[in-house]
């Protein structure tokens, strides 16, 4: 029914995915208005592209690919890519660092996440969200992004390093502030 363009049925899909789509767009674009526009664009593109949807793949994989492309196109268009393209040094976790990280509560975690995302490119944020939150496989991520599996792995590996590095820097700053009080 949905594939035949029944709008009422498509509304069910929108209802099911609107929160996830909006959230993902917001995390990548970091702007509520742009996230709303991009989520809307992604749904309209999905509706128009439904005849091309192959039933042998999962709808969510196919739809997240549309979101990914919509957000990246938006960023390219606005030229507001705030991500870092350079390679960061490898961060090694020491036992004390891991302990400090483990003691963070939910609110601190959220704050840390925002800081960690500051050093990631939109593409990396998408991969991190889908891999660590949605538990997508490398295979699915490759299908969503159009990147090769090894490329996805390398990007995730680097993103993880960047996140750990950023969190440690933030924690050290906080400890320094606390000590100088």
């Amino acid at each position, binding site marked *: 029914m949905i594939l*035949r363009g029944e709008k009422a049925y498509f509304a069910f899909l929108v209802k099911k995915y609107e929160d996830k789509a909006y959230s993902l767009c917001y995390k990548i674009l970091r702007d509520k208005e742009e996230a709303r526009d991009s989520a809307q664009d992604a749904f309209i593109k999905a509706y*128009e592209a439904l005849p091309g949807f192959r039933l042998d793949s999962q709808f969510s994989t196919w739809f997240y690919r549309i979101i990914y492309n919509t957000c990246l196109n938006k960023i390219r268009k606005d030229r507001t890519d705030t991500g870092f393209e350079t390679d960061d040094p490898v961060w090694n976790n020491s036992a004390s660092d891991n302990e400090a*990280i483990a003691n963070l509560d939910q609110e601190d975690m*959220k704050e840390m996440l925002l800081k960690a995302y500051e050093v990631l490119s939109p593409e990396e944020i998408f991969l991190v969200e889908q891999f660590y*939150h949605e538990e997508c496989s490398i295979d699915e991520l490759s299908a969503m992004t159009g990147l090769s599996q090894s490329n996805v*792995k390398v990007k995730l590996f680097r993103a993880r390093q960047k996140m750990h590095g950023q969190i440690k820097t933030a924690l050290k700053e906080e400890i320094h502030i606390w000590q100088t009080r």
Partner: protein
Amino acid sequence: MANKMISEDDLRDDFISAMVRSDKPLKAPEGLLDGIMNQIGPIPAATAIKPYNPPLWLKWGIPATIISLMLVLLVWGNENNTAQQAKGPSLFDKAFNSINSWFSGLHLNINLPNSNLSSTITWIIGGGILLTWAFLLLARFLDKKVHN
């Protein structure tokens, strides 16, 4: 690190997973659904969705071919079977004989099996091969048509 050496398990990270999950999905803004439905409203279903409509010859040609093949098998195959004993070599024998004679012209001696298949089996094998190829080609053709 060589990318081939990074496995999916190497990338799993409990801390990052917990951190990413600590941030619950945001609620979509009010009116997002209405905005989307308003925008897709003017898109006519016919232009939005283009189901493949096969031409009449193709639509009726497939069942017609199958039915006629079955009829031929039933009627002609039966007739041939009764006359089988009286008749000479089967279609397969003839085919193998001519292939053998071609090879003998090339001074090659390949002994093809001296089969004695009934005409019904010949028709079933021939028809099976033909139908398999017909369906494979048709499936490919339809697949291309739908995705273009």
